[in-house]
Structure formats: C-alpha cells, structure tokens
C-alpha cells in the first residue's frame, strides 16, 4: 500500500515534469532543442510506465517501459536528428504564433483540459491528474502542428499527441494487453519512418519542408 502512495507521489511529480517538457517544446525556437525536449518527455513517460509496473507488479508493463525507452526516447529522436542533418534545413522552428503567445495558449489549453476532466467527475485524484495531463498533451500537440511551419514539427506534434494518449492509457488502465501495446509501438515507429520519407520527398519537390508550400497542390 505504501508503495502505491509513494508511487502516486512520484507519478504526480513526473506528470508535472512531462507537462513542463511539453512547454519546453512550445517555448524553444531551435529544432534540436525541440527534439531533445521530446526525448526527455518520452523518457519521463517510460518512468511513468516503470512506476506503474513496479506498483502493480505486472511483468508486461516493464516491457512496455523498456520499449518506450528504446523507441520513443532514443530511436525516434535519433531519426529526427538524422533527418534534420540530412536535409540541411535551417535549424530554426518557423512559427505562425510567437513563442510568448504559444506558451499562453498552451496554458489556456491545460486549464481547459483540467476543467474538462473535472467535469467528467468519475475519477480518483491521481487518474484525474494524469488524464488532464494527457488531454493537455493531445491538445498542445495538435496546437504545435497548427502553429509550426516545418514538416518536422508536424511530425513532432503528432508524436506528442501520441505520448498524451499513451500517458492517459497507461495511468487509467495500468497497462493494456501487451499485444496491443506492441501494435501501437510498431505503428508509431512505422509512422515516423513514413513521415520521415514524406519529409524527404517534400524537401525534394519544394526545396523546403515548409508545409505552407503544399498550398500550391490545391486543385
């Protein structure tokens, strides 16, 4: 029982840190630091999975934690850095919405998410916290996709959304069946690879990965 309490304290801390890492992505204007912040976020997610595994004692979730660590915290950031290096773009995040207002909107989204989860009103304290964090991640990820020009940031945005879903799922259900988790990981990995290829193609066609250019494709 004490393990669970300790677990929940740790969880609260880590969830707060995950939110902070998200704001780090919102606030930085360098592609590398965005990727790094994403790596940190994924690492924290792996920690959440580890704590859940520890407090429930399920072996499956250890594997999930390990996979998160390997795929999301190491492999995907590596792919990102490889793409950025290969296509030789300016390493700046080009924005539609300035950094201060991005952070403001992010804050508003967190508040909305919190109230949203409160209004559902069926959760325990801990799961309500993690669920609102997860909802914030999803909405901030979407917001990043909207407000950033470079195709890489769209990839990053969708991965942040995915992380949000992962956080919600693992803290609510204490681990889905391993098969499902494996499927999701496989999906994410393939998704990143395909998106990476797409970014290369966009770069070759438009000599830029600015997704604004895609407007010319309209029929």
């Amino acid at each position, binding site marked *: 029982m004490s393990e669970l309490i300790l677990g929940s304290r740790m969880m609260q801390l880590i969830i707060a840190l995950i939110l902070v890492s998200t704001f780090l992505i919102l606030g930085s204007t360098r592609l590398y630091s965005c990727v790094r912040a994403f790596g940190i976020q994924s690492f924290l997610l792996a920690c959440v999975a580890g704590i859940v595994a520890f407090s429930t004692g399920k072996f499956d979730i250890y594997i999930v934690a390990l996979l998160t660590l390997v795929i999301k915290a190491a492999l995907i950031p590596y792919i990102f850095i490889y793409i950025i290096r290969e296509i030789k773009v300016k390493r700046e995040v080009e924005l*539609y919405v300035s950094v201060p207002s991005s952070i403001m909107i992010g804050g508003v*989204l967190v508040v*909305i*998410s919190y*109230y*949203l989860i409160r*209004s*559902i009103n069926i959760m325990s304290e801990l799961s309500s916290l993690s669920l609102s964090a997860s909802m914030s991640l999803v*909405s901030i990820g*979407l*917001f990043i*996709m*909207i*407000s950033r*020009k470079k195709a890489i940031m*769209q990839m990053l945005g969708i991965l942040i959304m995915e992380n949000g879903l992962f956080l919600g799922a693992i803290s609510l259900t204490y681990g889905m069946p391993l098969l499902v988790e494996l499927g999701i990981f496989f999906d994410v990995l393939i998704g990143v690879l395909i998106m990476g290829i797409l970014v290369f193609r966009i770069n070759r066609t438009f000599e830029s990965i600015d*997704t*604004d250019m*895609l*407007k*010319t*494709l*309209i029929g």
Partner: protein
Amino acid sequence: MDYNLFSGLVIFYLIGAASSIIFNKKDRLSSYAAFLNAAVGSVFGILFSISIISGESFNFEIQGTSFLNFGFFVDRLSAFFILVISIATLAVSIYSTGYVKEYFGKKNIGYLGFLYNIFILSMIMVVSANNAVMFLIVWEMMSLISYFLVIYEHEKPEVRKAGFIYIVMTHIGTGFILLSFLILAGASGSFSFESFSGAAIPPLLKDLVFLFALIGFGAKAGIVPLHIWLPYAHPAAPSNVSALMSGVMIKTAIYMLIRVFFDFLGSGVMWWGFLVLALGAISALAGIMYAVVESDIKRMLAFSSIENMGIILLGLGASMIFFAAGNPGLSAIAAVASLYHLLNHSVFKGLLFMGAGSIIFSTHTKNLEKLGGLIRKMPVSSVLFFTGVLSISALPPFSGFVSEWMTLQSLLLGFSLNDTFVMIAFSISAAVLALTGALAALCFLKTFGIGFLALPRSQQAEHAKEVNSPMLLGMGLFAVLSILFGVLPVFIIPFLDRIVQTFTGDGSFSYGYFGTITLSGGNSMSTPALLILILMLALLPLMILLLYNGKMRSPVYETWGCGQPVSTARNEYTGTAFSKPVQMWLGSFYKPGREITTTYSVSPFFRESIRFGSRTEQIFERYLYAPAVKHVLEGSRKVKLIQTGSIHAYLAYIFVTLVILFMFVILGGR
C-alpha cells in the same frame, strides 16, 4: 428443379465472366467463352422463368447477418422480367460473338466479356432480390458495370462525357431510391420486401415514397425530364451493350415501379396514376419528336427508347388509375398492355440496336447522312432491320402493333369509369399515343429510306459488306420473335394475364375462335385475320396486273432529270430534309437555328465556299439542366473557400472543433 435452374443460370454467367478473363490473351477464345456461356445461362433463365410463371414462386435465402442477407424471391412478375432479360441475352450473346470481331486486336475482349456477364447477372439479381439492402447493392452493381460498359471505348472524349452524364444521372436516381426505401423501412421496421408490402404508412409519407420512387426509377427508365443520359450513353456503348441497356436494363426500373406501386404501397391514390400517365404521354411525345430530327442512328434509337418507355408508362398509369378506382379487371388489361409492350420493345429495340451495330460494323459510321444503298450491299441485314422498323412503327401484323393497340384500347376503356377528369386525361393520352405512332412511323421510314435505299452517300456505304453469320443469327432470332409476338398474341396474352393477376387480381380477357381476343369493353382483335388481310392486300396489285395486262413487264429507263444528270448521291434527298417539315411545324419545340458562313475571294460576288449548318435545341438540357448545373457549381465554389490547401488550416478546423466540444462538455454537458 427451380433451384437447379436458378443456380445453373448464376453459375453459367459466373463461368462466362471468369473464363473470359482467363482467356484474356486470346481474343477469339475469350469472346466465345464469354458469350456462349452467357447464351447457355440465358437458356437456363428462360426455362427457369417459364417454370415459375406456370408453377409456384421461388424463394431462396442465404443466411447472413441481421442487417444484410442475400435472398431471392421470384414470383411471376420477377420471372417475367427474367424471361425478358434472358430472351434478349440469348439473341444478343449470339450476335456478340460476331460483333466483337470489330474489337479484336484493338481492345481488351476479356474485360468486355467479364463485364457483359456480370452485367446480365446483376440485372437478374435486381429483379429477384428479396430485400432492400441487397437490392440496392445489386442495383448499384448494375449501374456501375453498365457505366464501365458505356465507357468501353474510353479513348474517345465524347464517350467519356457520355459516361459522366450517365453516372451522375443514375446516382441521382439511386439517391432517391434510397430515400424511398428508408421511409418504407422506417415504417415497416425491416428491410425485407415482404415486410414493405404490409407496412402501415401515413398517407403523406406514402406520397413521398411514391414520388421518390418515381424520380429514382424514372431516372433509370429514362422518363422525361430525367432522360438526358439515354441519348448520350446508348450511342457511346458498344452496340451489343446498347441493345441490352436499351432493351432490358431500363425495363428493370419498370419492374421496381410496379413492385413499389402495386405491392408496397397497396391500392394507391388516383393522382399517382395521373402523374404516371402524364409523364408517360410527355415522354412518348418528346422522345419521338427528338428521334425524328436525329441523324445519328443510335442516338435516334435512344430517343425512340424514351418514346417506348413513355408508351409502357401510359399503360402502367392507366392500370394504376383503374386499380385506384377499384376496377381490377380494367387494371389488368392496361397492365397486360404495358407488359406486352415492354416485351415487344425489348425484342424490336434489341433488333434495331443490333441492326445499327451491323451498320457500324460494316461501314464504321452511324451518321444516317453518310449511308444509303445498304439494301443491295447487306440484303439479309436490311430485311431483318426492316422487320424491326415495321414492328416499332406499330404496323400490323408485327409485334408493336398489338401492344400499342391494346394500350390505346385500355385508354379508351377509361370512359367506362364515368369520371370527367379521367375521360379528359385518357382521351388526351390516347390522342398523344396516336400522334406518337404516326411520328414513329415517319421517323423509321426516314431511317430505313435514307439509310438502306437509294444510292450510297459515302465511300464507307459504298464498300459495305454483309455481316457475319452469328450477327445475322442473333438478329434473325429477334426478327422471328417480333413477327411471332405480333401474330400470336392469343398465346402471349393469357401468359401475361397470369403474371398480371399477381398484382391486380383477376384478368378479364376472353379468347374466341381464330385467335380473337375480346376485351371486357367488347372490343376485339384477331391478328391472324389481320395477317391474312395484309397478305391479300399485298397480292392485290399482282392479281390486278395479271387480270388486266396479261403479262408482267416493267420497262427500265433513266429517270428524267430536266436534262441534268440526277443519278448521283449528291442529288439525293437527305434525312435532315426528310424531317424538315416536322421541324417546321413544331418549331417552338425544336427551336431550330441555322448558321450560314460564306467565304469570299475578291469581293462578295466571288464566293469560294458556303457552309450551312442547322441545329435543334435540346430544351430540357438548356432550360432545366444547364441552370441546375450552374447553381450547383456556384454553390460548390462557395464551399470551396474553406478548402485552402493549407495543412495548418485543416488542422486548425479540427482543433477549433475539438476545443468547442471541450467547452460544450465543460459548460453544458453535465
């Protein structure tokens, strides 16, 4: 027994489809595999339908999910349509084995054979489906496959345009059919046709079901003003396919109209019948009026199909009115007339389309103005085509006459209802029908006279050759049938009577000595007697000659041409000139226009060339469809504003929606 025949026909069409794809590389083998299998399948179809009509109805269910199960229900009405489809398929398949030689080495025969078989199978499924979901699936299958058949020669731009018009119109129709079925299913609580027929529906919804079904199936049947796809799609399709599309596919819509009106909606309201009657009269008249001035043979035949669908609807409308007035006996007579004309039309229109296909096969043109003199180049085809011409012109003793006579009689029988409005409507319809018959005769006189008689007007017509024997055999089969259906209605009508009894109640014909058929009003007809009369009339001049001259000698001279050489093709009467009087009488309908362009060399007195062009207006396209299309496009352009092409904008739409939904949950969703 019935089960074996039914599965036999399904299996042969499937084998035909599969084997034609398998032998794709070998054109000849592939065509035989496709069309001979289809022919065998159609023989099964004929046996099956005859066995149903003379015996019990057929019910067969394949267990599926609660929502979708495939089941077949074939009563006498369905069996009649399977019979019509199968007879047409038999003749057209035989014809096709010869006709597709045209495409050997140029087009993919396996693909054509595959679509052809599946197309026929889907038509049979349409008339035998026992629930709405399955019906919509096979209906859509039939529409899509016929679309692919229409665009078979897709390298021509006008064919692609025709296909587009066809698929748009047919999907508008399917939309309305879906609406009417949804109302029916909502009222009955199930999608099976069986439950539809007993459903308790409020009167207003009943009217809606009727209107939606009429629009939906009317678009397929080619009722004016939903007819615009026929004159595009029928000329664009290969001729054997147009024979099937015009001969039987558009009839499946009539099948469903009868099902919906008589079976699902029960005893209807008077004005439904009047609406159908009015649409039938308009279709018949407008269709034949366009056909008269048309010089593209297949387009002319397509317009004539609209006319004949109009005549079928006249019979159907009259039948509905009698039924609603509580007179099933008269209703049965009108329905028999309608079904008889449907059967006849599928035969002679199939014959004429195959004839047009033969002309295209040997001259590579379908422009009437370029033909001429074909009766000497292709004598057998000409005689067969002439049989079709006589039938469609409703001349006794050919088939078209019997059914149009019966339709006319059933309209005249309306006077026995003693209702002023009925009398007015029926007498106008009868007058329209008579006028239509006269115009049809003119139209086909023109077609045969310009196309087959006189001198060839072009090189292509000059070098025409008789077509191969499978094509003649296919056409011959239909020619024989159109004579038999004309001479022996005394056997056909009792047969149709059995079918009609399933939805109107009692039949009311009496059959007398020497093939005399007496309607309940007291009017009677004996077609064998008519045949003998006509043969006598034909022999009359011969006898007069023999009696008064003693010897028969016809001197041969040149025609006197005022000292000018007349015997060249350039001096011949043209098809346009032949139909010019009609165009002038009915100028407000055709809105004829002419343009004359003259080129000069030095001054206006030295003309180099004068070009004359004349055209007629398609009033429905101009005044109904063009404005509608314009408005739809304008609306689309407005909607297009939100389609910026920017990923960020699309994501923002999602995001804003999401946030609004969040707020909705937070504020109001407790």
